[in-house]
């Protein structure tokens, strides 16, 4: 398959592996931010190809995993309402709230539907004027413009039966939080290529300067990852910091400017709670005052729904790179994809699920 096979070539991959082996002189901890990158690393066994001195730390970049319990409980409360068609991306459906998940709401008779695009939810609202269509708008800067476009289109179409439950998160504040935490172990980053396709790379320059870390914007195919890892390690070995771009076929310094403008039109930056980590200032997007009437939390008055997270789950420590999933006492025993205690076990992109599915010790 063109534009895919080129990036999954075994001979080229082995060249990078050998180059990395020649390059590395001492131990390094590198964090890949994005869940999609974690997925590729584990699915292709990249972590097992690297020298022992290189530790890959799976970052908090899975939007499904970091959506707070409280918001999932609110989604479930909304989805139970008889007038509501609740729409969501597939992997949000199985994320456990305090007592249930959206698939169980569906089994119980709630109208919960999986969609591939927020625009599908808008057309559902058009076709079902007597129902309220709610879209669970999760995601990083990658998915946020699509969600903003859905709201913007709903406004253009004059739809009063469409709203979104907003759980958008932003990468740069999370990196600040990780790097300013006392005792953090991260020495270099693979930044999320798709987030940067939208936002560009300029947002990361102050982070690299402030904390003196190399940040390499990296794609999602196996060779992208290997090259990104190589570039990060080369910078670390040479004592360099700054932003470099491995994913030049998609990412520019300024990013997708029309998409950024749309984000500004529809959303505003807000503080956001991350599951297992806590509240990170300025780390979310919410609908701004001009579009507040599309906010499902206000429309369905679910502010009284609150929740407390499992005390056993160490998701926060995993997502910040302090511990690996198998080090969790609940991993694979009390916490499995069938009965996840924390969100990283739910989405296939979640660090714990990735370990469970692909790397469980044989």
């Amino acid at each position, binding site marked *: *398959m063109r534009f895919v096979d080129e990036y999954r070539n075994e001979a080229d991959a082995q060249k990078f592996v050998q180059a990395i082996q020649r390059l590395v002189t001492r131990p390094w901890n590198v964090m890949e931010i994005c869940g999609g990158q974690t997925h590729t690393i584990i699915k292709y066994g990249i972590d097992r190809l690297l020298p022992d001195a290189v530790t890959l730390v799976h970052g908090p970049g899975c939007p499904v995993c970091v959506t707070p319990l409280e918001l999932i409980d609110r989604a479930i409360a909304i989805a139970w309402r008889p007038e509501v068609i609740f729409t969501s991306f597939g992997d949000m459906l199985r994320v456990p709230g305090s007592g249930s998940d959206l698939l169980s709401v569906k089994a119980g008779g709630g109208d919960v539907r999986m969609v591939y695009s927020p625009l599908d939810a808008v057309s559902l609202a058009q076709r079902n004027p007597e129902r309220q269509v709610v879209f669970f708008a999760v995601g990083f800067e*990658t998915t946020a413009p699509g969600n903003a476009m859905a709201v913007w289109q709903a406004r253009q179409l004059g739809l009063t039966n469409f709203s979104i439950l907003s759980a958008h998160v932003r990468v740069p504040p999370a990196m600040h939080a990780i790097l300013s935490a006392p005792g953090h172990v991260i020495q270099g980053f693979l930044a999320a290529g798709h987030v940067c396709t939208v936002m560009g790379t300029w947002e990361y320059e102050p982070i690299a300067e402030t904390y003196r870390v190399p940040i390499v914007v990296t794609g999602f195919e196996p060779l992208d990852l290997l090259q990104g890892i190589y570039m990060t390690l080369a910078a670390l070995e040479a004592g360099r910091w700054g932003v470099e771009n491995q994913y030049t076929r998609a990412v520019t310094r300024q990013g997708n400017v029309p998409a950024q403008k749309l984000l500004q039109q529809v959303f505003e930056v807000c503080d956001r709670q991350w599951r297992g980590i806590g509240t990170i200032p300025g780390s979310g997007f919410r609908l701004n005052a001009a579009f507040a009437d599309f906010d499902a939390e206000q429309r369905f008055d679910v502010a009284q729904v609150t929740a407390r997270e499992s005390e056993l789950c160490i998701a926060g420590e995993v997502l910040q790179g302090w511990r690996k999933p198998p080090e969790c006492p609940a991993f694979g025993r009390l916490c499995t*994809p069938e009965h996840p205690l924390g969100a990283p076990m739910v989405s296939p992109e979640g660090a714990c699920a990735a370990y469970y599915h692909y790397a469980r010790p044989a």
Partner: protein
Amino acid sequence: MSQEMPVYTGLQCPIPLSDYPSVTLAHGGGGRMTQQLIERMFLPAFANPALETLHDGAVLEVGGTRLAFSTDSFVISPLFFPGGDIGSLAVHGTVNDLAMCGARPIALSAGLILEEGLPMEDLWRVVRSMQQAAQQVGVPIVTGDTKVVERGKGDGLFINTAGVGVVPPGIAIAPKRACPGDLVLINGRIAEHGIAIMSVREGLQFETALQSDSAPLADLVARVLERAGEQVHVLRDPTRGGLASALNEIAAQAGAGIRLHEAAIPISEEVRGACEILGLDPLYVANEGKCLAIVARDVAEDVLAVLRAHPLGAQAAVIGEVVAGHPGKVMLRSRIGGLRVVDVLSGEQLPRIC
């Protein structure tokens, strides 16, 4: 003599209510939750040696003849899809389950559950399709049943088929027979049925020329058995849950490991492309005309030649081997040479967000 009442160990449902107070779609997805339903509820309730082989069908000895007996229900939506329909699928499904027992199919039954309001024209199309499929395989539909449910209580049409077949002497197909050194073969490209169905589902239409691989495998299997006989250790059609689920079941039952080579697994460009876009792993996507054969290494080349000479096996390939290491687990050597576990999914595969 009055029949003895079954002894219940308790009134409690063996699947703790706290886990799932009601059935979810994931219980029918062919993954771990389906397995749990079978292991915790059905097996203890119906316990008997024939059931406990956990194969695609049961093999029963009757008057010196070994009979294979199997059943399958079809609840597919939409009823008509590229490359087939619920009628042909219902015939192929049970014929294939019998073939995977090493049996020559003899007769089928058909139970139809019709929803009030189903167009008579649709019913006729399905019935004709069943007739043609049965004729093609040379297996008559010898008995049946019809029920009609109220509008809204069925999805147009559900079909159950059951079938019996005869297992020739000297043939012993069982998951437990997979042993280290055996090779794993498949008769062609994977994941075509699942992707073809998805391409016409409401809310997900995309343009593709892709067709379901739905096909009867009895003739193909008969030729393999003629050539390799008892050297054929396991046969399995990787339907719901795909290649990954079928091989995991075999590995678990055999207590052996299975090692796959990703680059050797036949898959069309179109299916790969659709899976990339939809965020799905083709190893977990359904097939309806594929047969996994685990055979002794000595006969693997012969079996491969037999498969490739058959119209349903032109793209046949050796895709892996049975190993002594990692018993009960399936591992895959990825395209770039890394190694990973191929696990059982919990329920249905859910597309990833980004």
